[in-house]
């Protein structure tokens, strides 16, 4: 399409002006929206900063799913995430994030991970303690034989302790205290717990009236197990252990169907409520182990961000200055297009939302380079046409047509690379790939739509006229 087969009517130039105004107005409006969170801290769409920029801690746990049916893994991991999320929420950290991550097929056996991100928290000890506070609930049976054995050992140790007390280690006393209670495992644990609730005894069955109790409801599987244990052990004692400590050891009078049990242990109402809560929160479906900890001081993150933004602004200013000096009027247009590019990207960061990390910023810088490159490619082609005698507007149109294949190939390979990196990469690489991929698409839009719309709206001229305008369309060191 060249200028000659297009009627030079005032309608045409009005349309061009109209399109350019719409583009500029849209960008202006978007810039205003993007700027919103900066002046209004309560904005609903603030920028989300990653831990490396905002400061905070990241804890990575590995879940041991080796004892679990593979078909159940994903369900159990979701339960695990919910439990940990509730615990983390108790820390009162705002904006905390708990998510699951699975090592990809690259590793031989998939490893299930749980990642906890705590923005602003740099002392992880409280968090680690809270997350690790696994109240384990176990039901064990009294074993008379084991009790007798333990009794015998205890007596012999006692006599040993008295005879050697003056000469050898005093620690023997300490060891005596931790001799295991005479109970054996039944396999019934907190894993089979569905819910726990605070109750008050009705004063029947030998219990004190209004004594606080914790009633537990088992899952269907757990209920069956509980019924079987109670049926085969009538007359025996069932010990209820919390965190390895014996809470109570009621006698089993008969088989108990229905999947519920009551724990009594001389609780105060507050203790009982806390226990019920802990059991609800605490029944971790699979054991977890802390695998990696990462803490970035808030001041460090702030400095990185502040200096990074400063460097970005100065770098960007220099780029626009260079473009204006070398490409003159089209360079100015490129400056506007690049500003639009940045505005659109920032808007996407806010509304998708994209969590900004140092890796993401690397992707941003690279895609900004691509955006500049698209403009440079077009202007170089335009220069050739303009020098050859085309009018500035026709040269601009030809410039876009002829630069298109290079822009297309470069951007498609970049986009494909971004997709693959996003697909394969670890979370950091994903952050880079996402921003880079978005950046490539937006940079194409900014060069092909914004630069183009504005460029063809500029008044038409040609090199031969030698006017100031004609010189403004020239470039480099030439006139």
């Amino acid at each position, binding site marked *: 399409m060249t200028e000659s087969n297009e009627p030079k009517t005032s309608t045409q130039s009005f349309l061009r002006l109209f399109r350019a105004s719409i583009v500029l107005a849209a960008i202006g409006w978007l810039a205003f929206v993007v700027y919103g969170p900066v002046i209004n801290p309560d904005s609903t769409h603030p920028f989300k900063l990653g831990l490396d920029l905002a400061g905070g801690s990241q804890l*990575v746990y*590995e879940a041991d799913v080796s004892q679990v049916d593979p078909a159940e893994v994903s369900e159990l991991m979701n339960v695990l995430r919910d439990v940990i999320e509730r615990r983390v929420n108790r820390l009162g950290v705002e904006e905390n994030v708990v998510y699951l991550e699975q*090592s990809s097929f*690259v*590793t031989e056996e998939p490893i299930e991970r749980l990642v906890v991100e705590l923005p602003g928290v*740099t002392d*992880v*000890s409280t968090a*680690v303690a809270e997350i690790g506070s696994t109240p384990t609930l176990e039901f064990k049976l009294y074993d008379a034989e084991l009790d007798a054995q333990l009794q015998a050992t205890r007596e012999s140790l006692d006599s040993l302790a008295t005879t050697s007390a003056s000469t050898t280690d005093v620690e023997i006393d300490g060891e005596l205290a931790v001799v295991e209670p005479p109970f054996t495992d039944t396999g019934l644990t907190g894993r089979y717990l569905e819910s726990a609730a605070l109750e008050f005894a009705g004063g029947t069955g030998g219990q004190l009236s209004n004594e606080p109790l914790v009633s537990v409801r088992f899952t269907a599987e757990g209920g069956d197990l509980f019924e079987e244990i109670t049926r085969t052990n009538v007359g025996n004692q069932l010990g209820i252990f919390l965190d390895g400590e014996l809470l109570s050891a009621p006698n089993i009078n008969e088989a108990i169907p229905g999947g519920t049990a009551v724990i009594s242990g001389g609780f105060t109402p507050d203790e009982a409520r806390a226990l019920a809560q802990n059991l609800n929160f605490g029944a971790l479906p699979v054991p977890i182990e802390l*695998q*990696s*900890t*990462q*803490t*970035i001081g808030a*001041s*460090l993150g702030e*400095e*990185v961000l*502040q*200096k*990074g933004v*400063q*460097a*970005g602004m*100065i*770098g960007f200013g*220099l*780029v626009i200055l*260079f*473009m204006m000096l*070398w490409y003159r009027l089209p360079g100015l247009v490129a400056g506007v297009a690049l500003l639009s590019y940045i505005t659109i990207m920032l808007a996407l960061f806010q509304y998708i939302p994209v969590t900004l990390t*140092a*890796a993401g910023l*690397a*992707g941003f*810088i*690279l895609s900004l*380079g691509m955006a*500049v*490159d698209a403009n440079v490619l077009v202007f*170089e082609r335009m220069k*050739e046409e303009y020098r050859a005698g085309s009018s500035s507007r026709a040269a601009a149109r030809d410039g876009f047509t002829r630069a298109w*294949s*290079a822009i297309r*190939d*470069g951007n498609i*390979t970049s986009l*494909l*690379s971004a997709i*693959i*990196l996003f*697909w*394969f*990469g*670890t979370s*950091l*690489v994903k952050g*880079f790939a996402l921003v*880079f991929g978005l950046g490539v698409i937006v940079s194409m839009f900014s060069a092909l739509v914004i630069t183009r719309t504005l460029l063809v709206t500029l008044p038409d001229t040609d090199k031969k006229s030698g006017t100031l305008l004609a010189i403004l369309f020239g470039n480099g060191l030439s006139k």
Partner: protein
Amino acid sequence: MDIIANRKIFLLIAAAIVVTAIGIIATFGLRFGIDFTGGSLTEVSYEVSPDKAAVEEVVATLGLTSASVRESVDEAGNDSYLIRTRDLSESERLELSSAATELGTGGEVSRFTSIGPVIGQELRDKAVWAIGGVLLVIILYVAYAFAGIGTPVRSWTYGGITILVLMHDILIPTAVMSLLGLFLGAEIDVLFVMALLAVLGYSVNDTIVIFDRVREQLVANRTEHRVEREEAGIVMADVTYTLDKPYTELVASAVSQSMARSINTSVTTIVSLVALYFIGGDVTQTFALVLLAGVVAGTYSSICIASPLVVAYAKWRGVDVDSVQTTKTI
């Protein structure tokens, strides 16, 4: 200076640079950070910092063998020590941080990172797979873009050379990183991988833009020969092309036409990276330097290696690159 005519000189220089880079990496090696090896990194900052020996002693007292202590400056400008140890448990972490902060005035743990060995291994594996996948896609796409336009060498060649040039562009920042490790103790971390990924994107784009000009020259200067034949009632056309100018001449004009664009794009990128190096924080300084090395290498290689290599390869394959009568092309 005609780069294509003097291609031997440029390719020799490139070979020398590549050999030097490999030599540097092989001799001095690369210092992998805990992101890859697993382990813990504790940064303790002080207002008045203690002797390095005192810190080392504390670390040794805790029984942390094969630990290293390095002097550093934290982001706020305070003196600090970077203590690198094996993967620490929560209780070991507490012991180390309380012991180390007591050594000097205003001691504070400004950064703590602990990475399990499995995560480090996984990061490595994934990075290798991801980059492998990217290379494959680039070869396929470039080959597709050049298919059927009548170039004297197979369209695969352009994809292959894009990758060779890419390796050159990755090798140079890696050698720079090796030297940074040697002199400044810089370690290869995730940010370095990000920088390499960025160089990868930049390098491929740069090479493709030049090859696009080569493609345009080929299309503009070819004569089509169409031979129609009938086979079992179906008319088929065999299309072959003859180039009107010597291949060297076409590639040379493609290079000289892309020169201004290559230089201008590089200048803008270099300007922003220099700003990042001087103004950005310490964390991004190494990143900026590595990227800078990659961009300079990428610009040089797209002009002085990619196109000369295509011509050299064509000649090696027996194509008469300096004469007009190019035979039937594929």
